[in-house]
């Protein structure tokens, strides 16, 4: 049987990708952030997942404002590295697992999560930066990705965003879908985005460490409480783009409420964003 063996949650700031791709990770500005990633890389290496479910939001690469799915899921053989305007990141494409994806889709829809399905899909920094952090070397380099992937998209770009409770419950539905997959598969779930930040308007540059510290603590001790906070309060207290933390709740929802946090890293700041990372083990 397949099982979710752990979760990693991390910010997906584009400039973290640039720092890796341009080999800047030892520069004074970036070193403390990347030093903090090393234990997470070991955690992921030891978990050795066969499949990684990556929960992220598309940033105008694959999703146009003409059609915005609240939730979506990939079922492609291969996910290409997208050109977001600067040219694609210099990293390999990501191998999918259509059979596993379709199993998830069937079981999620049966549980009343009506996700949009992507059979062709490129991925942007929201997906690739966390993958480089989790699976790459210090500079994010990999010869090939040591895991197959399933992208799960959450709309955090155009109102209305889904409620935190719904995202947490999506995680629980993903967990049940994974548990019912008949073949032995070790599954990692990667929740991305956050932490507090705001990119747009006069409040651009807003960060709130007090909120982030509360979130990190409750993510461990009382994730249900985070699921009860309305989405508008995330935007108010963690910045407009801080609402991306709902994708951490998808990952956390896929684990038992008493899952063990084994590592935590928090750093101010990566460009405009308070950067956080956590590692959770299933048992």
């Amino acid at each position, binding site marked *: 049987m397949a099982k979710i063996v752990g979760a990693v949650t991390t910010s997906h700031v584009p400039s973290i990708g640039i720092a890796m791709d341009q080999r800047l990770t030892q520069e004074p500005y970036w070193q403390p952030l990347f030093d903090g990633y090393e234990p997470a890389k070991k955690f992921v290496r030891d978990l050795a997942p066969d499949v990684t479910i990556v929960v992220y939001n598309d940033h105008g690469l694959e999703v146009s404002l003409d059609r915005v799915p609240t939730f979506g899921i990939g079922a492609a053989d291969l996910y290409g590295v997208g050109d977001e305007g600067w040219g694609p990141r210099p990293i390999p494409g990501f191998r999918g697992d259509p059979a596993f994806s379709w199993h998830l889709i069937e079981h999620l829809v049966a549980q009343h999560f009506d996700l949009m399905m992507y059979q062709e899909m490129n991925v942007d920094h929201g997906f690739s930066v966390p993958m480089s952090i989790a699976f790459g070397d210090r500079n994010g380099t990999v010869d090939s990705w040591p895991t197959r992937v399933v992208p799960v998209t959450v709309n955090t*770009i155009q109102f209305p965003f889904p409620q935190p409770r719904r995202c947490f419950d999506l995680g629980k539905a993903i967990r049940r879908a994974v548990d019912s997959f008949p073949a032995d598969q070790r599954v990692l779930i990667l929740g991305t985005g956050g932490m507090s930040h705001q990119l*747009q308007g006069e409040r*651009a540059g807003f960060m709130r460490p007090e909120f982030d510290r509360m979130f990190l603590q409750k993510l461990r001790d009382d994730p249900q409480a985070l699921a009860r906070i309305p989405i508008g309060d995330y935007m108010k207290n963690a910045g407009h783009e801080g609402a991306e933390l709902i994708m951490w709740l998808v990952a956390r929802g896929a684990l038992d409420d008493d899952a063990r946090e084994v590592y935590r890293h928090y750093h*101010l700041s990566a460009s405009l964003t308070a950067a956080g990372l956590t590692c959770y083990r299933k048992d």
Partner: protein
Amino acid sequence: MSLTCPTNRKAFIAGPVGYCRGFGLSAESIGLVTSRDWLGMIRSGGNIYYIFKLAAIDRVSMQHVGAQQNSMTLEQFRAKLNSVKDLNHG
């Protein structure tokens, strides 16, 4: 979003006004785009992730965009970002 395609980026750089007209933008909206009035674009309903494709064309960072929205220089805005302190942990 069309600017994720290199051919379209070339077309935009060669003639931004005509490129925007092709998408039915008003003269006012085109003015916001060509003057890179980031706050103006946001206020008129622009979405940061889509208008940020223009920053990629200009090779400027989100910090640059953030600074302008705060009516600050890049140095002032970086100082603002660095002034945020994590009181719980030094």
